[in-house]
């Protein structure tokens, strides 16, 4: 038989990239190449203070957030232009009092909805109301497999215990569950136990995501960077578990850039198959894009439609395709495989977002960042700078060695 299913593009990395299959027949989605899935960061407010938070260091205050009506209008517009899935994220999306209403609206306009949450603000009643409103999937982040490490990383007492409870409710309500585990030097030793925890929680999927170093994580790089030995062991553990748990737990693995040989195809290519919307309505090519200075990002509050911003705005077109590339990318045979890697990382490490991502061995800076990663990991500086609206707070000296 011929293949009955064609994979038409996961949100993150996508080796097969079947996007073209979805963009046939002269539809509006083809005209604009509208992404299949969009990430809605409803708020930057969050009770957790994780030192690797993917939000920008300059967090948007509650007062600038889109209103309920504005978000509903956005959801309607997204469905109309061909977006199929909406990921409600943050900050902590459940900090929004109108989340059930927004999930219901997503269902009403035909969007498949996913909740990406720390889960510490959830109650069983709230989760039930979200399920009744049509929520399709829940993703809960975990900082470790037990409270000592997990609560320290989250910077919040009792958070791990609350997450475990919320994960159980999720399955009791028959909602599918993904466990998201962000991994770094100070919790990688728990990986095997985290995998078992995901099995015990009856999760469908586990994301083992090594920290990506932008924003808050870049500030905390010295405290988070794994050793090469840890990474090698991690790959072995993930591979073994993948085989052992086939049909029981699907495991997605995000490798760390600094120890890579080839750069990741970040966001599937800039402005190619993904955008996210910030709490105040800015349309961004990725959640870290605002770390690149000198780019202006338009808002849903502007006079332009979302499709227009995606298609025409300067920020989206700056690094779209391959025309912007300098050497060594320009003449590289992989330029349409990885699109030069990650623009935010190129900016963070070289000062110019138009350079080759130093994660690539062909970057003149590759050797330097590899050595930097090794030496930072070896120095074993372990105090975190916690994420908050004040620009970060250094962990007390007596907190970390426990």
């Amino acid at each position, binding site marked *: 038989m011929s293949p009955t299913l064609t994979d038409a593009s996961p949100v993150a990395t996508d080796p097969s990239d079947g996007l073209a299959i979805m963009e046939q027949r002269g539809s509006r989605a083809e005209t604009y190449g509208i992404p299949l*899935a969009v990430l809605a960061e409803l708020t930057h407010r969050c009770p957790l203070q994780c030192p690797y938070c993917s939000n920008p260091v300059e967090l948007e205050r509650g007062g600038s957030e889109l209103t309920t009506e504005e978000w509903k209008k956005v959801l309607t517009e997204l469905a109309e232009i061909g977006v199929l899935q909406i990921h409600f994220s943050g900050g902590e999306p459940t900090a929004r009092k109108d989340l059930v209403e927004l999930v219901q609206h997503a269902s009403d306009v035909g969007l*498949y909805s996913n909740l990406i949450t720390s889960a510490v603000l959830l109650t069983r009643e709230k989760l039930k109301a979200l399920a009744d409103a049509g929520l399709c999937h829940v993703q809960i982040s975990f900082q470790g497999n037990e409270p000592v490490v997990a609560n320290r990383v989250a910077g919040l007492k009792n958070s791990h215990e609350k997450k475990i409870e919320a994960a159980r409710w999720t399955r009791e309500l028959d909602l599918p569950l993904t466990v998201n585990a962000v991994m770094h030097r100070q919790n990688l030793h728990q990986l095997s136990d985290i995998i078992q925890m995901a099995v015990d929680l009856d999760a469908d999927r586990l994301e083992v995501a090594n920290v990506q170093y932008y924003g808050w994580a870049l500030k905390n790089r010295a405290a988070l960077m794994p050793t090469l030995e840890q990474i090698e062991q991690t790959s072995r553990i993930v591979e073994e578990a993948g085989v052992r748990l086939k049909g029981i737990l699907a495991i997605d693995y995000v490798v760390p850039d600094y120890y890579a040989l080839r750069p990741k195809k970040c966001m599937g290519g800039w402005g190619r198959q993904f955008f996210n919307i910030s709490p105040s309505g800015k349309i961004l090519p990725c959640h870290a894009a605002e770390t690149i200075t000198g780019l202006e990002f338009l808002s849903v509050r502007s006079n332009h439609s979302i499709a227009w911003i995606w298609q025409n705005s300067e920020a989206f077109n700056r690094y779209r395709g391959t025309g912007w590339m300098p050497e060594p990318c320009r003449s590289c045979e992989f330029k349409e495989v990885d699109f030069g890697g990650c623009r935010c990382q190129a900016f963070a490490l070289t000062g110019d977002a138009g350079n080759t991502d130093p994660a690539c061995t062909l970057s003149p800076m590759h050797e330097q960042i590899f050595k930097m990663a090794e030496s930072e990991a070896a120095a074993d500086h372990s105090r975190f700078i916690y994420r908050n609206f004040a620009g970060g707070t250094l962990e007390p000296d007596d907190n970390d060695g426990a």
Partner: protein
Amino acid sequence: MAGLRNRNISVSEASRPIMPRHAKLKFDEVRQRWVILAPERVLAPDDTAVEILQLCDGVRSVEQMIDQLAAKYSAERGAIGADVIAMLQDLADKGFLTEAREKAS
């Protein structure tokens, strides 16, 4: 490690498959084609897969589906039966079909 539940069902003529809550079959009006929506994924099923998935309501057995398809296409039952089961098993292995079951409240 006892009691690990394998999520993937084994499809037989007695099975009464249904799509799980996290997988949704939907007609995408903008692109004018059927899609399966699942966590972090969008898949594009072909016409045959769509027709078979639409029969998977958790009530109808695979046996009944095969009868129905054989009648509709005036095909020999044995010939399409194997194909239907193979396709359903493929969909089940990918996590897009489950067995109808009593809900624990």
